[in-house]
């Protein structure tokens, strides 16, 4: 669903993109659409905001005071919508409770202002209280939800349920007994006579804002907040939030503390919604429990949906469109508004092909929101970093000879690094970012049982640095379980796992990642909607915590993987082989001491498999590499020590030549017992 803002911005950014032209033979519109455009996003933001702000202020002064009064509400609603854009759009938290936090902020303002305004002569402090109340409420709720690992859908239900319960509570506080200080809560009658925004300069008199001034303030805050969110989107905080939204598992595997991040974002969203609530209370001078009910909760979601979930400017669009329509149809409390809102929801959900969320995701991938994808895309082209002269010369992009589109034949640099002859040079450059030669990973007597099934039986293995190690075995041998145990995905029933002598048996994947385990899963788990460069940056940043160093490191790896050409394409558009390499690159970017690869060549062509083999050989110089594989040709070429698993136990070890001559190994691959067709295998393993 296209919104006006979306179309304009994309046009602007495509026009502004340097040298990104259509030089690729056969590149369909799909490629173009999938590209996340670089743009002068920062500048255009400022320009748009300044113009919009100017216009609104001008208009505010020109129109009748009553109109300004109406428009103020819209500005306040934009602020509320922005809180949901932050929480849902940026971080993927499906919160139906923003309106409830808004209400809490409003009541907090009311209570505080009613008690304090007369004494201090100002109510700005009440605004602060409103924001803080919103933040505290969100933090408390968020703690239980996120640290309880509630899935997104449950988060939605719980936030909605909370809103309804708050509604019931506040609704019942009618009667003069329910008061906090001088503030009577009023129950379903509402809290009345809430003071307007009043400030007082030191030594001066309390001054109440006029309606026009109030309009200017609210609009100003909305614009400032929009810009701040945009800016946050470019900073690590925002980029990590996006990563959490796009692929929580992968973010955790990179070492990010996903729960903490969600809590932070949710709390910030609560502060913003609370602030909006404070403004709202001051606007209408009245707070009623209906703010906690279903309809306002739905409205916030609708504004954001209509405007585009990921879009900061969409918050403006959504509010204006929906509220404008409602008011034209007979006022926000009118009958028809409810029907409109309900019909809009159903219509959007059923009408959008593929559903609301994927469609919005598609909009995201089509490069509508460059700012949220990070400035890295617009940043230094790979290789122009003067501090690493040994990086293969790639130059600014438009100097490179045209090559076939994002396919299995990346441009020149790939040959340099993934091919023969570049070995030492590229290898040394990796060391720029990493000094550790790899760690010793050991597995001692590890067993794993799932219910009655013994998947791993007393396995003891050691993976030494400076060379890759392979794990193979027939179907059902326990390879995947072993991998799961090494990554921390599965706990062990018995035995220990040591990393350089340290016991990591009880640690989950997120903690192991922090200790230096780089993981590549069997099914590629990358950020499909983000650019390749952003994927690598996220991995590098997780390990280093330094935005610029991570940027350089990511660019270097990008060059080495031969993915410069497709650096700003959404990863979901890349060929399967490239996505696999990218994931290996991400494992590398975290500066790991151990890299675990589960079937890295799955789905690859012969050509891609060869390149992967070289890549892994390079990796092994700097980290302990453990590869679980099926592809025997690949295993042969890798020329690494091999451990063969069979029915959950370690069957034998050796080089490829030794094992291929071993009759017993052949037998187990044929499903026979180790001793041939008549050999009885052990008791039922199933």
């Amino acid at each position, binding site marked *: 669903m296209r919104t006006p803002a979306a179309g304009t911005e994309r046009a602007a950014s495509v026009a502004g993109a340097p040298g990104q032209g259509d030089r690729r033979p056969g590149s369909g519109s799909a490629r173009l659409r999938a590209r996340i455009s670089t743009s002068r996003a920062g500048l255009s933001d400022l320009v748009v905001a300044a113009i919009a702000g100017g216009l609104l202020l001008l208009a505010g002064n020109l129109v009748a005071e009553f109109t300004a009064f109406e428009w103020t509400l819209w500005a306040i609603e934009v602020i509320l919508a922005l809180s949901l854009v932050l929480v849902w759009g940026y971080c993927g938290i499906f919160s139906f409770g923003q309106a409830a936090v808004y209400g809490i902020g409003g009541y907090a303002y009311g209570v505080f202002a009613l008690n304090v305004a007369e004494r201090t002569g100002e109510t700005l402090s009440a605004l602060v209280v409103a924001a803080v109340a919103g933040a505290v409420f969100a933090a408390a709720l968020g703690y239980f939800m996120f640290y309880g690992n509630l899935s997104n859908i449950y988060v939605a239900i719980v936030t909605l349920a909370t809103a309804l319960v708050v509604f019931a509570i506040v609704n019942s506080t009618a009667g003069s007994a329910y008061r906090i200080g001088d503030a009577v809560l009023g129950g379903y009658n509402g809290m009345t006579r809430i003071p307007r925004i009043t400030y007082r300069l030191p030594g001066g008199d309390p001054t109440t804002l006029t309606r026009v001034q109030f309009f200017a303030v609210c609009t100003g805050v909305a614009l400032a907040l929009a810009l701040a969110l945009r800016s946050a989107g470019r900073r690590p905080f925002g980029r990590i939030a996006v990563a959490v939204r796009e692929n929580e598992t992968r973010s955790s595997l990179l070492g990010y503390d996903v729960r903490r991040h969600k809590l932070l974002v949710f709390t910030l969203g609560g502060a913003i919604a609370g602030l909006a609530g404070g403004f709202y209370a001051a606007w209408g001078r009245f707070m009623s429990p209906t703010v906690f009910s279903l309809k306002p909760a739905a409205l916030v979601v609708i504004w954001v949906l209509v405007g585009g979930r990921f879009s900061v400017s969409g918050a403006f669009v959504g509010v204006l469109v929906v509220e404008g329509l409602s008011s034209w149809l007979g006022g926000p409390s009118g009958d028809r508004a409810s029907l409109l809102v309900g019909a809009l929801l159903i219509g959007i959900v059923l009408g959008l092909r593929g559903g609301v969320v994927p469609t919005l995701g598609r909009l995201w991938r089509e490069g509508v929101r460059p700012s949220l994808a990070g400035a890295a895309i617009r940043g230094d082209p790979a290789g122009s970093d003067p501090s690493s002269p040994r990086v293969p010369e790639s130059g600014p992009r438009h100097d490179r000879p045209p090559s076939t589109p994002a396919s299995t034949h990346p441009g020149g640099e790939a040959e340099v690094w993934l091919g023969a002859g570049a070995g030492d040079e590229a290898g040394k450059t990796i060391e720029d970012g990493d000094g550790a030669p790899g760690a010793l990973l050991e597995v001692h007597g590890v067993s794993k049982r799932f219910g009655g099934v013994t998947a791993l039986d007393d396995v003891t293995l050691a993976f030494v640095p400076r060379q890759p190690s392979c794990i193979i075995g027939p*179907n059902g041998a326990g390879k995947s379980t072993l991998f799961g145990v090494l990554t921390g995905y599965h706990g062990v029933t018995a035995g220990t796992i040591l990393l350089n002598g340290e016991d990591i048996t009880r640690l989950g994947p997120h903690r192991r990642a922090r200790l230096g385990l780089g993981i590549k899963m069997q099914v590629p788990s990358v950020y499909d909607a983000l650019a390749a460069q952003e994927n690598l940056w996220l991995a590098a940043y997780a390990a280093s915590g330094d935005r610029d160093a991570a940027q350089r490191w990511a660019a270097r790896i990008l060059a080495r993987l031969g993915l410069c050409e497709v650096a700003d394409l959404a990863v979901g558009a890349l060929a399967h082989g490239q996505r696999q390499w990218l994931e290996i690159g991400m494992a590398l970017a975290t500066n790991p001491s151990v890299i675990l690869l589960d079937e890295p060549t799955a*789905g690859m062509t012969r050509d891609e498999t060869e390149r992967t083999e070289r890549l892994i050989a390079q990796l092994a110089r700097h980290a302990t590499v453990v590869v679980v594989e099926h592809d*025997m040709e690949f295993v042969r070429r890798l020329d690494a020590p091999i451990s063969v698993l069979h029915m959950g136990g370690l069957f034998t070890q050796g080089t*490829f030549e030794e094992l*291929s001559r071993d009759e017993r190994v052949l037998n187990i*691959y*044929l*499903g*026979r017992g180790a001793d041939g067709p008549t050999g009885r295998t052990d008791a039922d393993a*199933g």
Partner: protein
Amino acid sequence: MLTLAEVRAGYGSTRVLHAVTLEVTAGECTAVLGRNGVGKSTLLRCIAGLVPLNSGRITLDGRDVSSLPAFRRARLGVSHVPQGRGIFAGLTVQENLRVGPAAQRPAAAAATAERLLEEFPTLGAMANSKGGSLSGGQQQLLALARALATQPRLLLLDEPSEGIQPSILDEIAAVLARIRAERHIALVLVEQNLDFAARLAERAHVMVKGELVATVDTAELAADRDQQRHYMAI
């Protein structure tokens, strides 16, 4: 009775099957052999209707079923026993057996289940146990019995021998041989266990990276070490 013509299929953007052409006649047992990850399971799932085709055709007794949903193919006589067996863990053995007939021939459902429990004494002893509490071998028997409950004409078995102890394996092989003879069912058997496959199928197709590259005589293959090495192993 079953033909596949130039079938291509996969998951999302990953192409798994490349131009697979295959024919199976009634009463015949065909094995599909190959290493892990080549696409054998996907082939069966495609025939069963669980994976859509990118191109190509599947016909059953001359009727084009390429776009029929899975449950309609089941009602036409296709029965699929997946890897992992797909037992309804929360239902008892008896209930597991009744699901198919209850959906297709409701009147005789209970009687069919009873009869199968007699035919498979191992299951009969556990008629009221929950599916999830059975061992792997017992689950395999149950899956097989369940597949037979709907009087199928085409039976698709995905690695039935995996993780099964030899005694139960014998029982399974015996049952399959018997029903093949009695009911003229066509069997397509995906296996890594060469000897088990050789017991049941005369002919085997070898699959490598999504394509059928050769058709061999299973008895020959079982005896020839070099061929085995070439197709199957390390």
